[in-house]
């Protein structure tokens, strides 16, 4: 699955429906029991439009996208998540992006990619990732 990456390469969309079951999995999976992520009433009273997904979940989704885009033996070196809007229960979350730069280091490619996560509400999350990809 190794290939030569170059600036401008498109990282196609990957989507996940943000179902109630997934919010339960996210609470348990990330060990984050802050009530805005599981208690609708608490979330609304704190000013949100409802239950929303936490940052660790978004990091996990970005990690999955790294494997899907760059291969199972790609290893992320840096991941920056910029929170711009909330990812609400009931929406569908989509990540897509482009390759911004490629360097070669120790025979491996270091790929800088920019991606955006969006829901039906529009873009919610900026993502910058550096990935180490082995060469063939």
């Amino acid at each position, binding site marked *: 699955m190794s290939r030569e990456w170059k600036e401008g390469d498109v990282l196609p969309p990957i989507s*996940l429906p943000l179902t109630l079951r*997934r919010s339960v*999995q*996210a609470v*348990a*999976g*990330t*060990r*984050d*029991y802050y009530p805005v992520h599981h208690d609708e009433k608490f979330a609304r009273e704190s000013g949100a439009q409802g239950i929303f997904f936490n*940052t*660790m*979940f978004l*990091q*996990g*989704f*970005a*990690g*999955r996208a790294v*494997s899907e885009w760059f291969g*199972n*033996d790609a*290893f*992320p*070196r*840096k*991941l*920056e*998540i*910029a*929170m711009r809007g909330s990812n609400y229960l009931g929406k569908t979350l989509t990540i897509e992006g482009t390759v911004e730069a490629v360097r070669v280091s120790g025979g*491996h490619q270091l790929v800088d990619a920019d991606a955006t996560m969006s829901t039906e509400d529009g873009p919610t999350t900026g993502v910058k990732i550096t990935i180490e990809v*082995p060469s063939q």
Partner: protein
Amino acid sequence: MPAITDEQRSLIGQESEPRQAPQAVNPAMASHWCEMVEDPNPIHHDEEYAASTWLEGTFAPPTMLFTWAMRPVWPEQPFKTLVAKLDLKDCPSTIAVKAIHTYEKPLRYGDTLTMTNQISEIGEEKTTRLGSGHFVTTKETFRNQDGEVVGTHSFVLFIYRPMGGNDA
């Protein structure tokens, strides 16, 4: 104006005492994580495949980093956050603006992690559409049982006085 005091500035770069992660890095929590985001990557559980790659064996999803530091909800462990220690006067609200991970080494199953944290940056006062306050960066450094840094987690926070009062 919530100016930064010398005392607050002196906290920058001060590393906390190490804290032990509640669980060793383990495949059960990793598989729950993979289910959560539907990540089928065999490198996290298929020893034969993982051993054939340059990464030389299975490891937990790197993006789980901060999860290993999460405190149990029971029994409760009281603690004081870095931001509470910083005690920025007149800035009652905090939002996370960015979360930045760096990954130095794969987290192998069985690794026992310790974390230290620090305030790595305090910005001058800024006014955004939310209000006036400071951008503060906190950094948590994760080390394995051999003392090697395996990754870091930074939060860029905006700690502020909401526009139009303290109770917005």
